[in-house]
């Protein structure tokens, strides 16, 4: 039928024969998209007397908001923390490949690095939307260097830093620029961290606690100053203890300011966290769970030796170790695998599994009005999945950017 829209002439797509994730349930509804955003079809019908220009038969797929990965160090041979002449090319390659895993927006992560690396890398990429070229760039996740020596994990010890003045100067000296930064992971027990936490939050940067030996009250203090995330829960922090739960205790803390949620990243690859621990966290605080891949350079590559930051790592099956040790150095699981594993290990519903990879990270970053949901007005970043949560197709701004070949 010819179009007849008084508000806009842009073409309207109607996704039919699908179940969409809305209001925390899978509903048998069509999804309407115009100009890259989810459209309210009732308003279209009555206000504009408009209808769809094209219909997309989704073959009974589930439609979920596109996944958002807030912790990914590289992949396909690219290491975001390795200084290179063309950082953009590396980020773009990963951005393009992760579309296959349903990721439509991401935060490339830099592990602890010398100032030279940050100063070189950070200014090279501006926050930008995704598209056929790849997932959208939401900003860098800077994991370090203000972290604990004891819990450095795979981070290089010689580049760890502390806060000298507790102000913006510390950040500028280390990073050079905060313009394209979405998140910073730091250890709150470092002296003078509170003012830094506040400084970052004021700039709209999410502060995450991780690679830390903080006790619960230090962690709660940081939250009160604005911290809202925990980097890969359980890993690189003190274990839960019943008299001092440490950072893990934030999941059930009663010191969280009203109206705020503490989110926590989980690497649900079956390796970084025992499924029982995953279940404990999920049951304690289901609405805060954010799936992250923490994927490293080797994700997508065959087994062998590869570089991560300033160190060398070794792939053995689905495990990635710091060469010569048994310290895990990151995961090579993809986001869709994490969603599937999370659902299977926790026994949660399909809706919860999908929201942990979409709605929750969007809420964490404060962008849930346009990402992470299929509400009217949100960006039409979508994943089409089958009932086993395998990705069939990925869309960004209503445009198909990847489809599984039959």
């Amino acid at each position: 039928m010819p179009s007849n829209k008084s508000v806009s002439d842009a073409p309207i797509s109607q996704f039919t024969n699908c179940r969409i994730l809305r209001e925390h349930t899978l509903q048998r509804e069509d999804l309407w998209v115009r100009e890259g955003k989810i459209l309210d079809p009732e308003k279209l019908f009555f206000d504009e007397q408009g209808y769809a220009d094209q219909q997309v038969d989704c073959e009974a797929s589930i439609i979920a908001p596109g996944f958002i990965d807030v912790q990914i160090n590289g992949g396909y041979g690219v290491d975001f923390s390795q200084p290179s002449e063309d950082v953009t090319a590396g980020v773009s390659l990963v951005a393009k490949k992760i579309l296959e895993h349903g990721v439509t927006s991401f935060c490339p992560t830099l592990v602890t690095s010398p100032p030279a690396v940050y100063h070189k890398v950070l200014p090279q990429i501006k926050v930008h939307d995704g598209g056929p070229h790849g997932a959208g760039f939401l900003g860098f996740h800077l994991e370090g260097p203000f972290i604990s020596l004891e819990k450095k994990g795979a981070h290089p010890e010689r580049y760890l830093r502390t806060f000298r003045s507790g102000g913006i100067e510390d950040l500028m000296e280390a990073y050079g620029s905060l313009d394209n930064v979405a998140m910073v992971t730091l250890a709150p027990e470092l002296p003078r961290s509170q003012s830094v936490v506040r400084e970052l939050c004021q700039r709209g940067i999410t502060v995450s606690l991780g690679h830390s030996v903080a006790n619960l009250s230090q962690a709660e203090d940081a939250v009160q100053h604005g911290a809202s995330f925990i980097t890969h829960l359980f890993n690189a922090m003190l274990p839960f203890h019943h008299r001092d739960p440490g950072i893990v205790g934030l999941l059930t803390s009663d010191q969280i300011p009203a109206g705020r949620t503490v989110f926590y990243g989980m690497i649900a690859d079956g390796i970084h966290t025992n499924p029982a621990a995953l279940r404990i966290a999920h049951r304690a605080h289901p609405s805060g769970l954010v799936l992250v891949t923490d994927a490293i350079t080797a994700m997508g590559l065959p087994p062998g030796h590869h570089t991560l930051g300033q160190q060398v790592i070794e792939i053995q099956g689905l495990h990635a170790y710091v060469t010569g040790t048994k310290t895990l150095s990151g995961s090579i699981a993809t986001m869709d695998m994490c969603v599937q594993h999370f659902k299977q290990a926790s026994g949660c519903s399909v809706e919860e599994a999908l929201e942990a990879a979409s709605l929750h990270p969007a809420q964490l970053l404060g962008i849930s009005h346009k990402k992470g949901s299929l509400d009217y007005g949100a960006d039409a970043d979508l994943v089409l999945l089958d009932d086993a949560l395998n990705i069939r197709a990925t869309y960004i701004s209503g445009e198909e950017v990847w489809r599984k070949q039959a």
Partner: protein
Amino acid sequence: MRLVILDDYDLASEWAAKYIRNRIVEFKPSADRYFTLGLPTGSTPYGCYQKLIEFYRSGDLSFKYVKTFNMDEYVGLPRAHPESYHSYMWNNFFKHIDIDPANAHILDGNAEDLEAECNAYEQKIAAAGGIKLFVGGIGPDGHIAFNEPGSSLVSRTRVKTLAKDTIVANARFFGNNLSKVPTMSLTVGVGTVMDAKEVMILITGAHKAFALYKAIEEGVNHMWTVSAFQQHPHTIFVCDEDATLELRVKTVKYFKGLMHVHNKLVDPVLSIKD
């Protein structure tokens, strides 16, 4: 009148939907010649709408050249409110079929000038060539659309204040909170529906039985406004067994005996595929 009695709600809904389908298909609507349909809302016609959607999905029926005019809408309820009649029609019918949005007419209960809105609606109906088939329901108080007891039997589209009975009946859609139910509505008049070439009233459920009795076995009375259709040349009442519970056995037997005649109207069921 024809009184078509089916065993249960589902069969009554199916019969009514088939009748509407046959009427549309045999009319052979086209861009020059639209089929005009009057439509109700509420729980009674829900099953009929579901069936019509099925017919559309199977490719046997199209609404491309059908113009619809709903009977009524609440005053002052935001159009996007889940209980508005706009929402009802969108969710239960329009969004599932191929009707052109420009041809789906519903009174605007939020219009600046309600009287002008009502007059304009009458004009739209006239401009469309009048209504071929007006489908309606009946309230427990015997009203058609929101023509509450005491409405003129020659009334036109206008603003009406809802009767207590109606507000109570509708409270279940507003969390059983009487204070949340709208008190006024815009409605087509009894006269407006009487102007239609054909009228089909759907009545199901024991709670409507007394109203049906008043409407067809007692006299024409403005206290039971559906009774006005006793004076319409082509009225069909489609009901289930329960709705006939207050009727005389003689009435029910007579019309049940005519079912073989009535069923010729829906059998064979026509399709646009032919």
